[in-house]
């Protein structure tokens, strides 16, 4: 009985958020605010590509108008 309860205890500890805190994450990077550098870079690339897509879209619209005249 004691053995079973100790195994159960181990499972409970294993699943608890207490244990999860030991998992290494990029906490220091977040505390230093450097994560915002990554966010800024990703956003610039994303917005740049979307802007390019938008210009292409408008160019195609102009072509469509021209052809239908």
């Amino acid at each position, binding site marked *: 009985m004691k053995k079973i309860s100790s195994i159960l205890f181990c499972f409970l500890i294993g699943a608890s958020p207490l244990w*999860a*805190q030991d*998992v*290494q*994450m*990029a906490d220091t990077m977040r505390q230093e605010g450097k*994560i915002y550098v*990554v*966010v800024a870079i*990703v*956003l610039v690339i*994303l*917005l740049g590509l*979307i802007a390019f*897509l*938008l210009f*292409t*879209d408008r160019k*195609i*619209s102009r*072509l*469509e*108008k021209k*052809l*239908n005249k």
Partner: protein
Amino acid sequence: MPDGDHTNPPYLRPEMKKTWWKIACVALLIYTAVGGLLLEVPRLNIVNETIRALYFHVPMWFGMVFLFLMSTIYAIRYLRQPSIEADIYSTAYAHVGLVFGVLGIITGMIWANYTWGSPWHGDPKQNAAAIALLIYFAYFILRGSVSNDEQRAKLSAVYNIFAFVAMIPLLFIIPRMTSSMHPGNGGNPGFNTYDLDSRMRLVFYPAVTGWVLLGWWIATLRIRLQLIEEKIYDLEDEKNK
């Protein structure tokens, strides 16, 4: 964007030129980039922070399946009522779908390298995805090898349906019958497992919607370009008559 039917070439579906869903796409993708990097994720061993790749890697596959589905729908439409437009739609969707699939494979390899130990781990889902992509590569080889327009359209429409039907079990059934390291596979399908808790859903679903819309947007641009090309050919033919 002012649009009226007089500005549209024939058979251009009007929703393609609407602006609202493009704005939604951009907003969702911005939210995905910011929320995906900043919001809380479960603290898990091995994957650690790389769990955030879920917001970018998995939507590629959602996008691919959506685009291939659209491609198949237009392939069926072509076979029911042959038209150049249906062929153009079908091909464009398959093209962009393939791009999404290749991006999915590459991002998956990068992720696998850090979490599974090697870029190609022989995981059933990884292998099946590669086979599915090869089947779609063959679609374009088939198209390239037929010079007659009508024959090319008809043959590739038939093959397209085959390719989609082959892809479904490859991606969604076979990996679940064996043990796959992909979450939600190997006997526990669905998203209710530890890998996707409610915090991640908050970003994951918008991410999928945003990336799918982006794929659709790119596909519509290709379709519109092809329709313009077709129109130019028609005008040239008229001139030569």
